[in-house]
């Protein structure tokens, strides 16, 4: 028998969705409810952080064989974050550059440097 769950993310967390832990606690609730379909309602949500999104994609995927997910009323900000974060998952190669390292031989030279910034 199908069991559905609808969650208003604004009611749970407010208009900004932050932290991996918030997603983890959300999915603990989903797992204990033993549902087959989950609607995540993004109404009134204006910002989703990268870490929230990354964890959301990962947790959703881990349940994807048992649970259907629907993202309801996700605005352009949410959709864009989902797309950008997906690009970074499973990315093996990243650009690395050597940053120049400097030292100062005296406290006064270090002070001069810091005052100049």
């Amino acid at each position: 028998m199908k069991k559905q769950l609808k969650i208003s993310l604004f009611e749970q967390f407010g208009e900004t969705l932050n932290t991996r832990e918030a997603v983890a606690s959300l999915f603990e609730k989903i797992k204990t409810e033993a549902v087959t379909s989950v609607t995540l309602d993004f109404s009134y949500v204006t910002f989703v952080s990268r870490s929230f999104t990354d964890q959301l994609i990962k947790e959703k995927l881990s349940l994807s064989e048992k649970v259907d997910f629907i993202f309801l009323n996700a605005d352009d900000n949410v959709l864009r974050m989902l797309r950008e974060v997906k690009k970074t998952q499973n990315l093996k190669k990243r650009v690395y550059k050597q940053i120049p390292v400097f030292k100062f031989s005296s406290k006064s030279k270090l002070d001069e440097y810091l005052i100049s910034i």
Partner: protein
Amino acid sequence: MGKSLNIKAPRRFSDNFGDPFREILKIVDSFNQDQTTDSIHVDFKENKFSGPFYLGPLSSILFNLKSLGQEINIEHSSSYLTTICFPYGVQLENQSIEEITNKLQLFTQKTYIPIIHFSTDKTPNQEVLRTNIISTINTILKEQLKLPTNIISAFYYFIDELTQNIIHHSESVVGTIFCQFYPEKNYVDLTICDSGKGILQSYIDSGKFSPKSNDEAINFAIYGKSTKNLPNNESRGYGLSTTRNMLVNGLKGQFLLYSGNSFFIHTNAREEIIALPKFKFFKGNMVNLRIPVFNISDFSIYNYISH
């Protein structure tokens, strides 16, 4: 009478990004040169005003020392220092989420977020509390700054990424956040710091990448070499790299990261690491952001997420 370490806050700081940090280095040096003090005395009598880049890290250091049993005396007559809850932060212990949220929301009409030492404890109660604190900070910043969505999102982004780094990497008991808006100067100074193990130790403990020094560890962290295992469908190591890129290249701001005995500075004029003498070793991480507050209509945080 026991030995006291005296810290005297300067009369004033210039607006230069590096000036308060210079004073923090002096304090760190003093602590490291003499660890046999019985008490610490902090004197603000002659200080006219200090901002987040001095007060944030100093409060983090004092909070940590007090928790270790150090006697600390603060001398000041400043209503500002009292209002921002220097140095021990907004009272969070034995308070309900509603009480804490209500307390923080009193700052909505101010130009600052008070000092908050948030717990990094991973119990469910603390995680809920922390999530609520961050959401409340975001709500307050939105009211204080009145910026368009594309710009205020960057603030939310920085705060989330840098606090998450403390929770997942630092092994610090608390992280510290403090923020001041300067409307007449059109920028916000934000500092987020901890007294944990620092970036180099984090790499050493993970067994990854084997950086040979603090400056190499910072280089690795800035370019996204993560200490976390990377199971499928998870991205790690983007917090610092995307934050500094977004701030400096996107918003024309300034970024400083101090860990161990090195610091990284990134502005539109420079991108470099400074290796410091051993007595300037900082136990933990300190990130200072100077965030210009301008309406840049074509700025989008999404241009910086995946780089």
